[in-house]
């Protein structure tokens, strides 16, 4: 009875199949094409704003005659300024060395198991972090009011040599001493933070190998601690470099002292003189930053699987790939 009409399934199969492109097919077709990276329009916008602001600042610096750039040029390499600069470098260098040595000693004392050494180191750090540098310097500059003579001998017993405090402590010495005492307190905490950042198991491994105590610290702990110490100590050193400007109150003519005294003699030149000081401090800080970068790189040996290239190496390889340099 239904023989006249063709079977239903057969009819459906005759219909042309709609060509349906699935996502999978599309991806298969595109698999060899590069992916279009995400665009970042806001990065461009933010960069533009910053560039405009920088241009404005540069314009303000260069077009304002009150900066007296010609006077700046005159003062920048004047012998009196260079002398001040050298004194600043000397004070920074000496106090950095004494401060760091004192700091290492204090840090080891604080970490020792001897309660007396521990508390003395703690008290030193507490005291010298509490006294403002400027107050400390003034105390030392007026030491003769406290102790007219200093002597070397048996504690509480007879003395062998005696000095007049005034002869012994020139203003230069006062500055170095004050800066070093202050520096040691801060350096101690930085060194200590580096040492305790090294895993305890390193000390255990070293002592299981029978390495002598000093060697354990010198060879195993300190090199690893140094990696943590460098960024914090670089900060401290930059602070010290600028902190030397405080010694002008002892009438010692370091960089800021020179700027200050010249400004009082040459009226109307305070701005270019301050700029001279500022630029020199910026130059010195920049040099320290470069040294910090390379030291960090050196002490990251073993801590990173591969040490990243320096900015110079990166620049060179970029130039090479673009064919500018060979």
């Amino acid at each position, binding site marked *: 009875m239904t023989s006249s009409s063709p079977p239903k399934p057969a009819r459906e199969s005759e219909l042309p199949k709609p060509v349906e492109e699935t996502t999978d097919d599309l991806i298969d077709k595109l698999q060899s094409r590069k992916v279009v990276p995400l665009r970042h329009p806001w990065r461009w916008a933010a960069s533009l704003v910053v560039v405009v602001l920088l241009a404005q600042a540069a314009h303000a610096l260069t077009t304002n005659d009150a900066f007296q750039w010609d006077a700046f040029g005159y003062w920048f390499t004047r012998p009196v300024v260079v002398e001040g600069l050298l004194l600043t470098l000397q004070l920074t260098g000496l106090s950095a060395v004494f401060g760091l040595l004192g700091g290492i000693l204090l840090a080891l004392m604080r970490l020792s198991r001897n309660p007396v050494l521990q508390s003395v180191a703690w008290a030193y750090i507490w005291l010298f972090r509490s006294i403002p540098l400027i107050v400390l310097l003034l105390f030392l500059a007026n030491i003769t009011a406290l102790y007219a003579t200093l002597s070397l001998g048996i504690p509480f017993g007879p003395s062998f040599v005696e000095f007049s405090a005034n002869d012994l402590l020139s203003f230069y010495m006062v500055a170095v001493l004050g800066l070093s005492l202050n520096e040691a307190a801060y350096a101690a905490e930085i060194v200590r933070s580096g040492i305790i950042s090294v895993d305890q198991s390193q000390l*255990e491994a070293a*002592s299981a190998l*029978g*390495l*002598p*105590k000093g060697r354990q610290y010198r060879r195993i702990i300190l090199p*690893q601690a140094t990696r943590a110490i460098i960024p914090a100590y670089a900060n401290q050193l930059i602070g010290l470099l600028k902190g030397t400007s405080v010694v002008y109150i002892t009438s010692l003519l370091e960089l800021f002292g020179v700027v200050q005294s010249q400004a009082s003699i040459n009226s109307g030149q305070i701005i270019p003189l301050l700029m001279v000081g500022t630029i020199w401090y910026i130059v010195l800080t920049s040099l320290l930053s470069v040294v910090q970068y390379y030291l960090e790189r050196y*002490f990251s040996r*073993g801590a990173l699987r591969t040490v990243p290239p320096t900015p110079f190496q990166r620049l060179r390889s970029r130039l090479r790939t673009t064919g500018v340099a060979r």
Partner: protein
Amino acid sequence: MTVAVKVRGAVKTYGTNRVLDEVDFTAQAGQVTAIIGPSGSGKSTLLRAINHLEPLDSGYVTVRGELIGVRLHKGRLRELSERAILRQRSRIGFVFQSLNLFPHLSVVENIIEAPVVTQRVPKQQAIKQAKELLAKVGLADKFDAYPRQLSGGQQQRVAIARALALEPELILFDEPTSALDPELVGEVLTVIRDLAAAGTTMIVVTHEIGFAREVADHVVFIDAGRIVEQGPPSQVLVAPEHDRTREFLGKLV
């Protein structure tokens, strides 16, 4: 048979916790002694007491007849100076559970450090020995690498080479494979197996019961600071006498 390590009446407490409770323990020279037991049973403390990394409250340890960390003086045991203890330790190799090579020193620097400093071996000779030892643990090509460039198993094999560089009379292993993923365990056990075959005196704290059964000459089961049972692996691991041992082994399978 010569006694390599003798521990007598070892007591160690942390606060009120008695980690070692009158432990008597003997390890023979040329043999592998395995110490097994649950976590916190005191097995690592016992091992660390042997080279005085963990000073005992009472009791004593001798290695080849020499008191470790203490000396007999006027009828009492007195602690030795730090220097003397460090000197004794350089005769005893120790391989830690955690991977604690020195990360800032290359593989070869890790290995030669102790022989050069404590035994005054000339540097060139130490480097030559280090190369031989690295070949022995299958890492001849990793000479200049830094530890973090190596896999956990490779690091642990370097640690074994570092311990061997002192030509120790005895090597202590504190769960040498427990920080490693299962694939790397085998390579470390192979190295220890080779050392055992060469007749090195070793004491191994381990959770690898299969390894203990195969390699150890003597197995010590310790629980709650006391030795529960000890003997050849065929006895302690296969047919233990004590319920506690049976319970522990049952949990591991």
